[in-house]
């Protein structure tokens, strides 16, 4: 088998497998779930591939849903919004809390303290 032939084969195979995320890292994350012992090759591949689809899905949904279309920007708040509004992404609401500006938060704290004083 010539060198070039080998190269082509590997490239072809990589394209067919078509993964752009490190499988070993995916496996690590999977293993950190409680009670997980063995993961077979298919499961690992499917999870990795699904994760890619998920990233695409999340990014696109957030972008479409968000205000960034005019400015061509994807921001954190777009993600937080899509998590709240889309059923599929609702499992993310805990890790995507809507952000509040520090000064607004401090303001509301002040107001709460005032209320306490008045009581």
């Amino acid at each position, binding site marked *: 088998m010539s060198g070039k032939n*080998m190269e082509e*084969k*590997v490239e*072809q*195979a*990589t394209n*067919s*497998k*078509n993964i752009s*995320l*490190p*499988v*070993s*890292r*995916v*496996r*690590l*994350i*999977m*293993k*950190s*779930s409680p*009670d*997980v*012992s*063995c*993961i*077979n*090759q*298919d*499961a690992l*591949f*499917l*999870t990795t*591939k*699904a*994760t890619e*689809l*998920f*990233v*695409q*899905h*999340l*990014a*696109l949904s957030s*972008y479409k849903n968000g205000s*960034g279309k005019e400015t*061509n*920007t*994807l*921001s*954190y708040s*777009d*993600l937080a919004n899509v998590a709240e509004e889309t*059923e*599929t992404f609702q*499992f*993310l609401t805990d*890790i*995507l809390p809507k952000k509040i500006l520090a000064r607004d938060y401090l303001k509301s704290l002040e107001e709460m303290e005032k209320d306490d004083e008045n009581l």
Partner: protein
Amino acid sequence: MDGDSSTTDTTQLGITGEYMTGGTYVLQTQDDDGDESFNDHEDGNGSKDYFREQDIYLPIANVARIMKNAIPQTGKVISGNFKNVSCNLGSKDAKECVQECVSEFISFMTSEASERCHQEKRKTINGEDILFAMSTLGFDMYVEPLKLYLQKFREAMKGEKGITPVTVSEGLGEELTDESFTGQLPAGLITADGQQQNVMVYTTSYQQIPGVQQIQFS
């Protein structure tokens, strides 16, 4: 990194475990292949004390790339020239956030798949478990494309006799399939010419064996 999970029991070591537990470990593996060993110990409790699941992420560069490619590029006119502009992912914020979401997603799928696995009294999570989890958790739309990808993947694997790609070998520790062992072995048999296919054995005193051609070396 200490690969021996038996040392995580700090009472045995007689030292305070403070430096081992409670810390946040963001995994930075330089060599993704070699680091699997510490994770292969199957005693469930030991290896999990090293890290919390929320601290393990996929590399931000990979994640960002997928995000950018997913979002349609817009055409913009910049100083008189028409340019294709990809989406601005803003500060690190959005990217890091997606990183965390990804880990969450993987854990979410895995625990669902794991549950099903246990229900059916099996120890190994297989492809079906994952697909089932996707379907159950609202990611039904991934299932069909994933099945196709899996098919392609299997075909690619079969066609790769002798080539063991990095992306696949990680999983081999879990379950070895027949395919992983097929390799092209070099032909090691030397057959002699002649009507009878005999292996030539050279001895100091050779006899004339009928039917076998003699080879003379000059």
